[in-house]
């Protein structure tokens, strides 16, 4: 489908939208809490992919995960009214599970929610503040009264927990 975008195939964009719009919209809405703003971010993410399909390289990761990360980043930029800090082409990621299909994503989402639910409240809170609210570690430290180093370690440990849950 991304190859179709590169050749200007509008049908390919429709297919991509049908497959991934639920992920993109859910992430945007989770960050922004506003359906209008989430819809605007949805438009922007897909339009950016249309304008620059080479920003995603299939050899470097899965499109669904890449779109999820791009959407989260752009939504946070919108939320915090700040300039984008990373170019699309520079967002390279690797994900263990295959998330190409709706069923795989649904199972993965269920597992992720389980892992998050099992975290300590302070770890879950730090991770969610960083991820869904775009707070910096110093902002989280100020809000929670915890030391900077503790916040940093909790956030990293939370991400590693997620990774281990999906390792074979």
């Amino acid at each position, binding site marked *: 489908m991304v190859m179709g975008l590169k050749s*200007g195939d*509008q049908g390919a*964009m*429709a297919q991509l*939208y049908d497959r991934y*719009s639920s*992920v993109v*919209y*859910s992430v945007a*809405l*989770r960050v922004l809490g506003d*359906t209008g703003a*989430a*819809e605007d971010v*949805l*438009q*922007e993410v*897909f*339009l*950016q992919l*249309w*304008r620059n399909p080479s*920003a995603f390289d299939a050899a470097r990761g899965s499109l*669904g*995960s890449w779109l*999820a*990360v791009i*959407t989260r980043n*752009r939504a946070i*930029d919108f939320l915090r009214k*700040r*300039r*984008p*800090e990373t*170019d699309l*082409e520079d967002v*390279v*990621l*690797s*994900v263990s599970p295959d*998330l190409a299909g709706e069923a795989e*994503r649904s199972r993965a*989402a269920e597992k*992720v*929610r389980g892992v*998050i639910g099992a975290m300590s409240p302070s770890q879950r809170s730090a*991770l969610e503040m*960083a*991820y869904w609210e775009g707070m*910096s*570690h110093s902002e989280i430290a100020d809000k929670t009264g915890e030391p900077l*180093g503790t916040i*940093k*370690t909790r*956030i*990293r440990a939370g*991400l590693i927990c*997620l*990774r281990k849950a*999906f390792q074979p």
Partner: protein
Amino acid sequence: MNPHEQHADDLALYALEALRGEERAQIEAHLATCASCRLELEQLRGDGALLALSATGPRAPQRARQRLLDAVAREPRIAATSPAAGTGRIAPQMEARGPGWWGWLGWAATAAVLLFAASLWRENSALKQNLASTTAQAAEGAQQMEELRRIAAPILEPEAQKITLVAAKAPPQPQGKAFYLRSRGSLVFLASNMPPLPPQKAYELWLIPASGAPIAAGVFKPDAHGSGSVVNPPLPPGTQAKGFAITVENEAGSPTATTPILMIGTGE
């Protein structure tokens, strides 16, 4: 492969774009030289992607799909402009490329060419029908004519705003001309004498509304002659334009202006 432990926590924050200022600069400098940390960063971003996938909620409204496909259909493929000459930076002084091409005569000539093209298309559609073209061919011709009408309308309609943008600093001046038809949310923008850009950068056009933040109105890269254009970018219909502005952004564009305004023009 083990990342450098002293960077491990900062890498995780960087992956979530939660690292700021000096710490961010330090980790970026380290990443430029450390393949193992770059690999770990990819893993951490993947971990973040798993977190993103935990989000659930309603599906996007049906109108969002059509809105996107309409925008895609209107979005010009910017294949006509060639990549910027590889000077690696924007020249501090704008280079003169000659006077007259985009003078007032140029605008009139452009409008005349579009009118002529529209009449050619109309004539072509009639000939096709006379030659017993298929229903699909007739529909395609009507769509093309309508598209040309939409393109020409901001230039030709009496109520369309015509705004000249000039550079804020010394001559010779890049020029921009925006033709905006508010009722249709239809915009044609033509630029000339634009300096070349570094790779992966583009000029971004902004509609400045009567109130609220500037609205992204398309990106373009100048060709070898410094000319560029934006044709009917997706815009909210009915938006009153106080003016237009140009900034330099990454070539994919930006939802918010991130650099100083290079050119600006307000309504006549």
